[in-house]
């Protein structure tokens, strides 16, 4: 039984670097809890019973949240033990907590219905999860735990190919490796990690964290072949000759463009290109790093999701004045609340209800302004519950020397052209076992969902791994009985 204790209404804050300091570099913004602060926050949790706790229901992978938070309090006198026990609980459902703790939209998931919200601040579940993962990594507790698990792995003698090293593929690979399968990841880029590596900036998710996750996978025996583009270097058909099953986690990497005159003017980037140059290729360190990027004095970012915030905040760090232009209103901004707040603190301006209709260039083919139509909201709502918007016939032109388009992405084209692979509206279709129309080929993450989230992609990877395990177990037994 939990001990009755006094309600502490306010969240224990996590230290953050001040905006005026952080806009000059790409180092992490939020510094996270120390053990003492984490325990203080953990103590606020009411320890709702697991079968009832609304936080667990809100988490897409159903982490036993009171379970892991409770361990921090229970073993408060032995931090290493507390973290190890908490990590065990988290790992049962989520193998990338350092990442999800940082990037999950907690306000719409685990923290949304936290009962503490009725009397005060909700529990800071994301930051606690992050703390456990960070502490464990720094102290080598995660590796220790991994090695306790490794000797128990019983080799199955079957091979699985994973396409794409994003959260979906990495999770599927890890789970399958732990089950004893021989796993090889095929990744198109030179670094594994998917969006975690090329999209989400260093100041929000340090790349060393992603690298450490990938390191652990390698220690589990997962092989990673970078520079291999499935559909070009090797086809799915060929993979099926060599492997017993295939998982597609190729994401939604094709940027959506705006069908307006002037879209190919110089200075107009897709968010993918801009963020890839900045994050993956480290253009913020040019010319020490060879890849250039051009950020002007006035930057307009079009869109209002996480990608738009990341692009805007990255551009800000090059010293630009940045405007986020969104065709809807503030209520429909889809980015995580924390990112929107950080963006505002960093001096980024938001312009609502404007929709780009033309990009205006100078005589050298460089963008110099964007013409927008002013929009207005209607009372009527669309299928997703957002207010419909219509054009007003009024226009406004805003000067800009750099424009970043962040209005969404489609699944990667090279994969979806595979013969026999059923695809609807660009998304790979899977059955309830995550299997595609090609037997033995499974899929998950953004490749089946369009743009979603890290935790949903991981959840898919985990479910697919389970389904692949069942499929391969049958295959094995079929062979043994034959």
């Amino acid at each position, binding site marked *: 039984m939990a001990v009755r204790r006094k309600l502490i209404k306010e969240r224990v804050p996590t230290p953050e670097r001040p905006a005026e300091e952080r806009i000059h570099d790409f180092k992490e913004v939020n510094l996270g809890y120390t053990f003492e602060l984490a325990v203080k926050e953990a103590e606020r949790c009411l320890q709702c019973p697991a079968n009832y706790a609304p936080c667990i229901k809100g988490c897409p992978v159903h982490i036993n949240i009171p379970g892991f938070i409770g361990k921090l309090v229970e073993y408060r006198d032995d931090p290493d033990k507390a973290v190890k026990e908490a990590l065990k609980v988290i790992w049962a459902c989520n193998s990338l907590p350092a990442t999800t703790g940082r990037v999950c939209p907690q306000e719409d998931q685990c923290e949304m219905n936290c009962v503490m919200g009725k009397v005060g601040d909700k529990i800071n579940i994301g930051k606690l999860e992050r703390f456990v993962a960070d502490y464990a990594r720094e102290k080598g507790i995660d590796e220790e735990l991994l090695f306790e698990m490794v000797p128990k792995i019983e080799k199955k003698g079957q091979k699985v190919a994973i396409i794409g090293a994003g959260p979906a593929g990495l999770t599927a690979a890890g789970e399958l490796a732990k089950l004893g399968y021989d796993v090889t990841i095929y990744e198109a*880029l030179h670094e594994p990690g998917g969006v975690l590596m090329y999209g989400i900036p260093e100041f929000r998710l340090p790349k060393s964290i992603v690298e450490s996750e990938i390191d652990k996978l390698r220690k589990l025996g997962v092989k990673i072949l970078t*520079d291999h583009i499935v559909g*070009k270097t090797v086809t799915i058909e060929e993979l099926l000759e060599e492997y017993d099953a295939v998982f597609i986690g190729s994401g939604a990497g*094709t940027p959506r463009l705006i069908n307006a005159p002037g879209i190919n003017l*110089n200075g107009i980037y*897709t968010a993918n290109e801009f963020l890839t140059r900045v994050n993956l290729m480290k253009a913020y360190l040019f*010319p020490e790093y*060879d890849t250039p990027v051009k950020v002007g004095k006035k930057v307009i970012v079009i869109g209002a999701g996480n990608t738009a915030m990341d692009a805007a905040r990255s551009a800000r760090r090059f010293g630009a004045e940045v405007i986020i232009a969104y065709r809807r209103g503030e209520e429909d901004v889809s980015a995580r609340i924390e990112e929107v707040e950080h963006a505002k603190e960093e001096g980024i301006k938001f312009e609502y209800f404007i929709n780009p209709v033309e990009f205006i260039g100078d005589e050298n083919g460089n963008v110099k302004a964007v013409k927008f139509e002013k929009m207005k909201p209607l009372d009527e709502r669309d299928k997703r519950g957002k207010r419909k918007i219509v054009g007003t016939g009024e226009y406004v032109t805003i000067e800009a020397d750099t424009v970043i388009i962040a209005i969404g992405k489609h699944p*990667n*084209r090279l994969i979806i052209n595979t013969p026999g692979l059923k695809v609807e509206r660009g998304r790979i279709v899977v059955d309830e076992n995550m299997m595609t129309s090609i037997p033995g080929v499974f899929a998950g993450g953004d490749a089946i969902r369009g743009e979603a989230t890290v935790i949903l992609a991981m959840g898919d990877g985990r479910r697919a791994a389970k389904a692949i395990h069942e499929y391969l177990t049958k295959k094995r037994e079929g062979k043994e009985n034959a």
Partner: protein
Amino acid sequence: MYRILEKKELAPKHIMYRIEAPHVARKVQPGQFVIVRAFPNGERIPLTPVMWDREEGWIVLITFVRGKTTMRMANELKPGDSILNVAGPLGNPAPIEKFGRVLAVGLSAGIVEVFPIAKALQKAGNDVTTLHVAPAPMAILKDEFTESVSRHIFEGFEIQEGWGTKEIVAEIAKRGAEKVKELLSEEDFDFVLTVGPAGAQKAVFNVVKEFGIPMHADLHPIMVDGTGMCGACRVMVGGEVKFACIDGPGFDAYKVDWDELIHRVGFYTDLERRALEEYLKSLRGE
């Protein structure tokens, strides 16, 4: 990691690397390219496999030294070293069909990319003439072409005192257009193919257009990933936005918005120059 089996200077500034890359060698077709990252802090640059051996698992890349990356490769890589990344093959194969008489034009360093395509076209039963336009003496791959196609023509010129890259490229465009005009006036061709700087390709296209002969152009926009993810390589073709890395790199020359392409490839010129200058400074120990 991909081992360099052989490295050779074929002509001034033209460096050949034979590289162990079995995953590319197994699959590559004429017209496709790879993305190479040679150094930990290096750029990803597109290069073209010029020759390959599927069984032995190697490809040949030939770079024209023009900026920091190609110069660093020339200076720093030795046989036995490894290249960090060779991704591919990427892009679509060139159309290898029976056209009849083909004129394949390599403007400046573009000639190396013409080689695998011209060879395959000749093999497919075409009568192929290859034309190389470049400052003399730059008889790169001359023997290889002579062996593989019906006729190889080298159109060279002397670099005048005081000329920089700009003047040389302009001269390549001028000479290319003139020579192509001469050839098309005197002989019948059914198909023209070009690879080279966008400005020079446009000049050649303007001539070919007068004769109404079908023309295929391999385009070289700036690329980053080469897999359709970033959109850096977008080009306007037939009024639609295309990604050269997955929709091309070859397109119907009649549909390409040449002026836009010329603008786009020049977008980073100032930063490229700065990168090169700082690199040269570091070489001088400054």
